[in-house]
């Protein structure tokens, strides 16, 4: 005879036994007491099986060597440590296969009503899939689609169906009375199963509808309480015609009626083609209102707990559920909902409908829940491999893998300031706009004057929302009278695209939009020798500051934009993504004797900080206005209208204590995020910081949020001086050179 291991002891089982039946055959209870249904409805047989907690052992076939551990009587089961814990790495995830199957009709339940539904569908010429837990198909959820989620021993299966029929039958009502958590109570169906399996029930007494086959003595009357002796039941007390009688027994069999097993039906959204048939659709009579005992065996919620919740004013089913946690446990209300409804019905005079069910109906493991779910995807620039070949340390920024540095961010910094450097800015948002109303659109969208931008010219712009808060920034490049190229920040590009499209639609303007963010790559050639490098690779007629041209560079067609984020002369070369590596290599090769180096974000963030350029989302906050950012110069309030104008006009004269300032400090720059103190009180925080190799001290951008704004503050225990950026080349001569 094969054996399973229960709490370290071996227990034999017979062919066809579930784990629960094997335990019962051994004269034990799989849990610590409570009525057993042996149908997967109640929580009273759940155990840890082979390391998985909350497994319904009545639904788990016994197998040789299966290791079963009872959950503690009070509290949650122990969380197991990995065999070889390594805090630096997550343990390898269990691989759970996910199969997706298209089908016409899914019938859940292979009982009588399920077979009828199947036959009807087949007769109608439809393809039918019948799912039943007895066949290893445990349905745990119905999602929109409808998609039926099935847990199988070997995989999770998603059935996409045209129609779903829920034919899951009915669950037996469990007893609620004093003593209902004792060992020795079974439902009528469970008693029949045990009898068929040859499990000795001892002296069995039936209350309510007796079992069909299990031998027992039927006792008329209603259940009053169950009497304990030595930790298990010894007798049952029933009331009949006003008299209470006590009947000694080893097993109490209860046949107290049924409740629809409709949790899947209650999970499916009303508009879905999901119908419920048979007993699962039946409106059974509720049990009597419970007066004492445990109502919710999962969470050990008693009638007195429900009374307390009711007395505190929670009167609706959903509220009683939330306030008491009744129905939120292992069985998801299968046991307690009928009693809970009866409890509320007696007090309110109206029978409440059962609450909406949520996935999953059964405990599934995290691995099963996460099966085939992917982490967010981070995009790779067309220069990804070039960066790796150059020793870049990559990190995730704005939805992209980007070079943080190439091993020495200070050397990269000096290459920009003194020679020439390449930066991969392929990640910038890039929109092409064309149409008869494009100027009208941009005038409404941006706080900058757009109509006066001539073809071939560009302008830095802020993007504000209706409240006048900064949501992004970038460049406007005018191509023709009716065609523009807009750029946005890497992290803000997707939202900006939606923003632009939404407003075009809202305003009904005739403008076409092409998003080229992922079609075009871009390389920023920056530094005092940038012009010379570009001359070498064929860019003879170079655009002046805030101009842009289309030209061939190293044989690659480029849209060349002259601007500056680093503070040095800069040329952004926008070009087809598939030619990017070729262009990058040509620039690196041609600039070798000029000291060309690539630079990563670490150097770039410092370079732009020296110039005082703001990074949206890093230096700005959700409610940063141009005034708070000292960027009023980028807003033309004399324009008749633009998004955010009304809010800016309304708040222009209001006192505002928030302001972004520059700060300098001797020595290394404090950590970004450091609190800023004045007279011992926190008055703001550091948004960006950098230890400037050129200036030889720390510089910062940070927020002061209390007036009067001090001239000196304390950061990181040191005195810092409030300053007005830029910290470098305030006249902007180098960028225009």
């Amino acid at each position, binding site marked *: 005879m094969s054996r399973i291991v229960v709490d370290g002891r071996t227990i034999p089982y017979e062919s066809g036994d579930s784990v629960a039946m094997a335990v019962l055959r051994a004269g034990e209870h799989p849990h610590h007491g409570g009525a057993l249904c042996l149908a997967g409805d109640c929580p009273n047989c759940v155990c840890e099986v082979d390391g998985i907690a909350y497994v319904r052992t009545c639904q788990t076939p016994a197998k040789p060597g299966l290791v079963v551990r009872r959950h503690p009587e009070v509290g949650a089961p122990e969380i197991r440590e990995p065999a070889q814990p390594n805090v630096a790495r997550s343990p390898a995830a269990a691989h759970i296969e*996910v199969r997706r199957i298209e089908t016409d009709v899914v019938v859940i339940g292979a009982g009588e009503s399920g077979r009828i539904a199947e036959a009807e569908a087949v007769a109608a010429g439809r393809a039918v899939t019948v799912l039943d837990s007895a066949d290893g198909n445990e349905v745990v959820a119905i999602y929109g689609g409808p998609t039926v989620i099935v847990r199988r021993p070997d995989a999770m299966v998603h059935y996409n169906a045209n129609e779903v029929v829920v034919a899951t039958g009915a669950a037996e009502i469990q007893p609620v009375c004093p003593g209902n958590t004792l060992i020795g109570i079974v439902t009528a169906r469970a008693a029949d199963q045990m009898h068929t399996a040859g499990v000795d029930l001892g002296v069995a007494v039936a209350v309510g509808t007796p079992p069909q086959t299990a031998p027992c003595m039927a006792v008329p009357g209603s259940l009053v309480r169950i009497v304990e002796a030595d930790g298990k039941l010894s007798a049952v007390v029933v009331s009949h015609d006003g008299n209470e009688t006590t009947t000694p027994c080893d097993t109490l069999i209860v046949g107290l009626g049924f409740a629809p097993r409709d949790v899947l039906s209650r999970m499916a959204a009303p508009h879905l083609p999901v119908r419920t048939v048979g007993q699962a659709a039946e409106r059974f009579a509720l049990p009597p209102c419970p007066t004492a005992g445990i109502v919710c065996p999962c969470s050990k919620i008693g009638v007195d707990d429900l009374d307390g919740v009711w007395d505190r004013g929670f009167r609706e089913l959903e509220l009683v559920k939330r306030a008491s946690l009744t129905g939120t446990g292992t069985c998801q209300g299968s046991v307690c909902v009928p009693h809970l409804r009866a409890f509320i019905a007696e007090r309110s005079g109206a029978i409440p409908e059962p609450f909406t069910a949520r996935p999953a109906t059964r405990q599934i493991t995290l691995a099963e829940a996460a099966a085939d779910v*992917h982490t967010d*995807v981070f995009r790779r620039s067309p220069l990804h491999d070039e960066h790796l070949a150059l020793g870049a340390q990559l990190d995730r920024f704005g939805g992209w893998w980007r070079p943080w540095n190439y091993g020495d961010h200070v050397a990269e910094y000096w290459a920009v300031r003194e020679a020439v450097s390449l930066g991969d800015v392929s990640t910038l948002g890039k929109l092409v706009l064309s149409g008869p109303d494009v100027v009208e659109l941009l005038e409404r969208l941006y706080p900058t004057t757009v109509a006066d931008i001539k073809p071939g010219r560009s302008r830095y712009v802020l993007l504000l929302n209706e409240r006048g808060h900064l949501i992004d920034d970038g460049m406007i490049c005018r191509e023709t009278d*009716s*065609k523009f190229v807009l750029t946005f920040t890497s992290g803000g590009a997707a939202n900006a695209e939606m923003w632009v499209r939404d407003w075009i639609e809202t305003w009904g303007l005739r403008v076409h*939009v*092409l998003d*080229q963010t992922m079609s075009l790559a871009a390389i920023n050639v920056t530094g005092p020798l940038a012009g010379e490098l570009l001359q070498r690779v064929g860019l003879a007629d170079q655009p002046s500051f805030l101009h842009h041209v289309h030209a061939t560079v190293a044989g690659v067609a480029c849209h060349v934009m002259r601007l500056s984020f680093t503070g040095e002369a800069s040329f952004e070369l926008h070009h087809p993504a*598939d030619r990017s590596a070729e262009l990058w290599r040509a620039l690196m090769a041609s600039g070798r004797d000029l000291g060309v180096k690539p630079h990563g974000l670490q150097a770039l963030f410092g370079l732009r900080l020296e110039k005082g350029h703001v990074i949206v989302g890093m230096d700005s906050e959700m409610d940063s206005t141009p005034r708070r950012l000292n960027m009023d110069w980028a807003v033309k309030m004399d324009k008749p209208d633009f998004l955010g104008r009304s809010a800016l006009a309304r708040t222009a004269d209001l006192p505002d204590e928030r302001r972004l300032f520059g700060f300098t400090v001797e020595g290394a720059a404090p950590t970004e995020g450091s609190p800023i103190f004045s007279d011992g009180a926190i008055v703001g925080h550091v948004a960006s910081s950098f230890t400037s190799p050129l200036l030889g001290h720390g510089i910062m951008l940070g927020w002061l949020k209390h007036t009067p704004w001090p001239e000196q503050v304390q950061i990181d225990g040191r005195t810092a001086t409030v300053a007005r950026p830029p910290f470098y080349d305030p006249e902007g001569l180098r960028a225009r050179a």
Partner: protein
Amino acid sequence: MLALETLHGTRIVAAPEALDALDAATWSTSVTVLRFAPDDVFVLGAETISISGEYAIVEAESGFVGCWLTDEQLAHVAEHIDWPLPVERPVLVQGFVAGVPAKIWLTSSATGERSLLLCAAPYACELTERLA
């Protein structure tokens, strides 16, 4: 492992009615017209395209990568899609494939055509690795 190659074509953004005409035109079998949106089309294999509308945006497009699929490969890709594939053919579908934004041009293998899996080039490596 699927080999995703750069798809060279033409991207056109124009009035939907102008693209309807493009869609309805008779093309040689080497041309594939992928209607990304009512106002957005990606044309593969056409040497010249004429489009009405002076404000149409017409750009050479090389920002997508793709792979023409055998039936077996399509079935493999379908295992990584958690939304139902439509029955009609040919049709362009768009959504997550293995958690990566992608598109599939579904054709009927009965006519000897092959389906095309494509995605924006920055997603290529991740999609390839996840489908491996």
